[in-house]
């Protein structure tokens, strides 16, 4: 890591070396780390010890990586039930950082890091950014929220370790974001994809076309987004938009990332061991089939996670990647099993509605899905903001648009929903994760 390092040219950084080791060597390392993490979890965390004991499993029973299936799953509720510190494997003397979720759906969850954990986290973020072609000399606008949320500080430390110039602007204040982006000659940005769409839109309103700007890379994560949204972002802004993946329970951002090929995300599996299971049965799915991603932290000291159920739906991509990385790749996550709602017996993901709207309008409008129950019957209303491009001064024009959207959604979902055209800026913009579904049903 010397001053002449140029991350853009190769997309390679010395810290990325583990991304390229032969699979056999990687499995060997993983097994070694798995055994020691299970040992640590068992000896330090009551919840793990009780669960392993209940199954009659001891850390010594892990002989191969396949033996991981003998371990119980860990779920988000476990973190809530042991709030705040019940899952810690390190004494507070060794814990140097705490983060927490917002707790919008109940009690927050708390995650802890030792200094070693922070180093691992920074390294995995260095590998993330290197894989997105960001390096020394890049000016990174870090628009992830700083604070209890892991996004801001995770990206911050990673970018500094990489040697990029970090602007710790945090989320919000879109007009200032646009001013900084232009005036500081920003070349890379990270934030949620929905916030970037909002920023793009606001920049255009302010007369700034990002296609002529210095910005060339966006690293977007913390919420599921679709390939069509990527195409929209890339054509509107002229940047390369990369999907990055992570979750606080495991470490924060930095669990996995796309590379220059933009064909799936590499998991930094020397730290985060991935499995894909059938969410109904808990059994592993055959290689290449879709299921729920389950992660085990192989190096986490303060808070080891054994077989944590992410609720994110994906599949392994067995084919080797064009970038040369050998670590396993997953398909980009466009949905979460808990985003799904069931309406009149049909499983619906917000991303399906998003794709239908994009196909019908040609641009991505702001939308929100409202679920209600009237006389025992579930109703879906999709509120879609009218944009100048689709607005008509004729009632017939707007009714045709309305019907077109209803039709497009019906084609995708197989059920008819109500579409309501609403005035611009009436759907609340998020500066973090977009809230796509409002469930008003009282079950």
């Amino acid at each position, binding site marked *: 890591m010397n001053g002449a390092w140029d991350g853009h040219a190769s997309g390679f950084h010395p810290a990325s070396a583990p991304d390229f080791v032969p699979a056999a060597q990687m499995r060997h390392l993983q097994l070694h780390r798995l055994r020691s993490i299970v040992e640590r979890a068992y000896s330090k965390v009551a919840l793990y010890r009780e669960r392993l004991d209940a199954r009659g499993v001891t850390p010594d029973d892990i002989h191969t990586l396949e033996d991981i299936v003998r371990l119980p799953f860990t779920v988000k509720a476990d973190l809530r039930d042991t709030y705040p510190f019940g899952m810690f494997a390190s004494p507070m003397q060794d814990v140097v950082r705490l983060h927490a979720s917002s707790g919008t759906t109940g009690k927050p969850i708390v995650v802890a890091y030792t200094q070693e954990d922070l180093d691992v986290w920074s390294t995995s973020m260095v590998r993330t950014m290197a894989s997105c072609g960001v390096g020394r000399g890049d000016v990174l606008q870090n628009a992830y929220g700083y604070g209890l949320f892991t996004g801001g500080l995770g990206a911050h430390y990673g970018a500094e370790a990489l040697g990029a110039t970090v602007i710790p602007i945090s989320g919000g204040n879109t007009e200032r974001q646009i001013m900084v982006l232009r005036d500081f000659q920003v070349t890379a940005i990270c934030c949620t994809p929905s916030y970037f769409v909002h920023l793009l839109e606001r920049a255009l309103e302010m007369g700034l076309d990002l296609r002529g700007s210095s910005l060339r890379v966006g690293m977007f994560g913390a919420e599921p987004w679709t390939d069509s949204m990527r195409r929209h972002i890339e054509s509107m802004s002229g940047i390369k938009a990369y999907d990055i993946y992570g979750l606080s329970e495991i470490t924060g951002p930095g669990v996995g990332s796309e590379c220059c090929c933009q064909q799936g995300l590499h998991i930094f599996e020397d730290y985060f061991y991935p499995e894909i299971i059938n969410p109904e049965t808990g059994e592993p799915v055959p290689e290449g089939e879709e299921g729920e991603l389950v992660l085990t932290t192989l190096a986490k000291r303060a808070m080891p996670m054994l077989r944590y159920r992410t609720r994110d739906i994906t599949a392994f991509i067995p084919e080797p990647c064009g970038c040369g990385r050998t670590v396993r790749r997953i398909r980009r996550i466009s949905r979460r099993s808990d985003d799904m709602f069931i309406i009149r017996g049909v499983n619906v993901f917000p991303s399906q509605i998003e794709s239908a709207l994009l196909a019908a309008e040609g641009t991505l409008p702001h939308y929100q899905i409202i679920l209600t129950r009237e006389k025992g019957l579930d109703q879906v209303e999709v509120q879609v903001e*009218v944009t100048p491009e689709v607005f008509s001064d004729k*009632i017939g024009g707007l009714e045709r648009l309305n019907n077109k959207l209803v039709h497009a959604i019906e084609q995708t979902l197989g059920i008819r929903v109500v579409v309501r055209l609403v*005035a611009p800026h009436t759907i609340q913009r998020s500066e973090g994760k977009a809230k796509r579904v409002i469930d008003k049903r009282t079950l």
Partner: protein
Amino acid sequence: MKLHQLSLFLENKPGQLTEPCRLLAHEGINIRTLALADTERFGILRMIVSDWQKAAAVLNQAGYIANATEVVAVEVADHPGGLAEILEVLENSGVNIEYMYAFTFGRNDRAVLIFRFDKPDEAITRLQAKGINVVESVEVYNRIEA
């Protein structure tokens, strides 16, 4: 020959009209006439204002969608059959009236109607050929009135 009408998207719920009117009032823009087309869920406010470019800028800045459309203001005799005379001119012309509404002012025995034609230029040619007065500008019209 053609006037600029501003069309505004509004949701059909109480209070939606107030804010845009207040914004225009604040900028000293006069609404010469307006018409509201509505369905159960949404409405379109169509307006002829004293300074349409400024009005569009003010409304867009406030986050409204305000599109400008070219419409035609036609003087109509204010007696039975006045409108029929005009419609007869356009009958069989292939010109379609998308919608129309009346102006809030007139001159003595004359009223002024606003038409949204699908082919405004052809409509104007045909109307003028029959000696029907197409109002060039609301401001000019008002000055003569005064």
